[in-house]
């Protein structure tokens, strides 16, 4: 019950420096269960750095990261995933030699704690197989499931990128510009897939595409040069003149 009151993901005074440059300065952020939280800001505002800090790709110089109340600041990246903190990447990070089928089967097996099994073929487990099947359909990958990822059209790869994250059954999902580079024609599929995300999953969305942000998010945090510049409901932010000035003013898309 306190899951409702207690933030799912929380950062306290997060700081990351690269030499002299401060990429993330004193960011304190809370993401509530089931939130649709967007993180926006001009290029170089340190959005991706923040994600990397959250997921453990980078170590913070100062500050704390809490997941469901426990401190995960020092936790290895793969362990955070185990705890339900899952991300997608701005630039596709896929397994070029594997097929969507294999990639997803691996992801699901891993999630079900079968990732290290070596004695039985991939996807022998019925439950795993079923889940893979669902994902293949849900993310429109069934028709290409046997093609090598390297050979898929970009849109499909983007879907796979997201599907892989979903396969991790996240409690908190960090989407790093999911629509980045996706041609207009294929964007719809992405949006739909995002709309279908389970309601109880908390989503932290980084995006340039304002339409997407305003359709999708309920809460928005504006990051400028590494620090939280403004935070609030979609409308507040949309109408906040300061935000307009620093961000929307520059034009977007």
């Amino acid at each position, binding site marked *: 019950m306190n899951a409702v009151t207690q933030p799912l993901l929380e950062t306290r005074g997060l700081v990351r420096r690269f030499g002299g440059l401060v990429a993330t300065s004193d960011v304190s952020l809370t993401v509530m269960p089931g939130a649709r939280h967007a993180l926006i800001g001009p290029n170089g505002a340190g959005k991706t750095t923040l994600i990397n800090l959250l*997921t453990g*790709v980078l170590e913070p110089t100062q500050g704390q990261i809490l997941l469901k109340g426990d401190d995960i600041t020092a936790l*290895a*990246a*793969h*362990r955070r*995933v*185990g705890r339900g903190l*899952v*991300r997608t*990447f701005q*630039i596709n*990070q*896929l*397994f*070029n*030699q*594997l*097929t969507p*089928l*294999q*990639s997803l*089967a*691996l*992801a699901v*097996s*891993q*999630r079900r704690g*079968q*990732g*290290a*099994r*070596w*004695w*039985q*073929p*991939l*996807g*022998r487990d*019925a439950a795993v*197989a*079923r889940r*893979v*099947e669902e994902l*293949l*359909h849900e993310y*429109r*990958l*069934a*028709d*290409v*499931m*046997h*093609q090598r990822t*390297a050979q898929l059209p970009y849109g499909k790869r983007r879907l796979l990128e997201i599907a*892989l*994250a979903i*396969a*991790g059954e996240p409690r908190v999902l960090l989407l790093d510009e999911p629509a980045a580079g996706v041609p207009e024609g294929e964007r719809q599929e992405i949006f739909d897939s995002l709309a279908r995300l389970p309601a109880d999953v908390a989503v932290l969305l980084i995006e340039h595409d304002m339409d997407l942000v305003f359709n999708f998010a309920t809460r928005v945090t504006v990051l400028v040069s590494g620090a939280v510049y403004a935070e609030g409901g979609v409308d507040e932010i949309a109408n906040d003149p300061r935000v307009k000035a620093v961000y929307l003013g520059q034009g977007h898309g």
Partner: protein
Amino acid sequence: MSTPLRPGAATPAAVPPAGAADRSAGIDVRQALRRDARWRWWEIALLAALAASWFGLPGHALLGNEIAILALFALSLDLILGYAGIVSLGHAAFFGVGAYGAALFAKHVLPDPLVGLVVAMAAAALLGLLTSPLILRGTDLTRLMVTLGVAAVLYELANRFDQITGGADGLQGVVIGPLPGGLEFDLAGRVAWGYSLAVLVLALLLCRRLVHSPFGTGLQALRDNRLRASALGLNVNARLVAVYAIAAALAGAAGALLAQTTGFASLDVLDFHRSADVMLVVVIGGAGWLWGGVLGAIAFKLLHDLIASWTPQYWTFWLGLFLVVLMLVGRERLLRPWTWWRRAP
């Protein structure tokens, strides 16, 4: 003609027409995945050929034995090179430990070959575990050098402690007992060959299971993209350590086979050229493909024997030429993008 060969995806039936995703509901994922692990006719044929060779070519038992051992060694390297993407110029380290392990065990403890084999594999695996931290960090060049260094260090140690290893003169007086069923190793080497073949085939079956399992797929995944692999929750380092140890054990087995079937071990088992040769074998046969090691070994040894019998002094020239041409021309097997070789994008 090539349709029966080309498995799964390639045959039109297997791929539902694009956009038909929803109608294709009920695709049996397990079947689809099982297809990857399915035995193909040529695999069976190769196994049969291996067996047949033992009956058909009694006169070449010794060569056959060496080939079987080299194939096993190559298989082990392929596991880390082709599947997990770890480059190594020092794989001989494990081969050597296996060889000396088996020889010393037989000499001082127990002449039984099978026990010796297990002991040798355990020793090699242990070394694999101990040295695995070295291959987790750094660039390919670093890895090449460190692995190479480990082998070199072992070489020097074996040379240094000659009262144990026999130093440069080799370890003499190793007597290997009979295999179960009282099979003595005979001069013609047929028993030895059978023994090595059996071990090789077992290893092949094991590796086959391994690479088609979630674990094996995970290896290929982290070879392609470590960042994402860990983003899926894979403990990348743990996987690398594990596979490195397994490969080490297999290499150790190969070494043990050599020591047991020749009743002899010399510094040469740790020598650089072992590591280089096995690398060549894997590449000739094709990396990232279990059978590559076997075919590579056969091709390499026969090539060597053919050329060497024709011009003993200069056969390396032709081997070199072969390599250069092979690499210049390139092959689809090698042109495969090895993302782990490149600068991070």
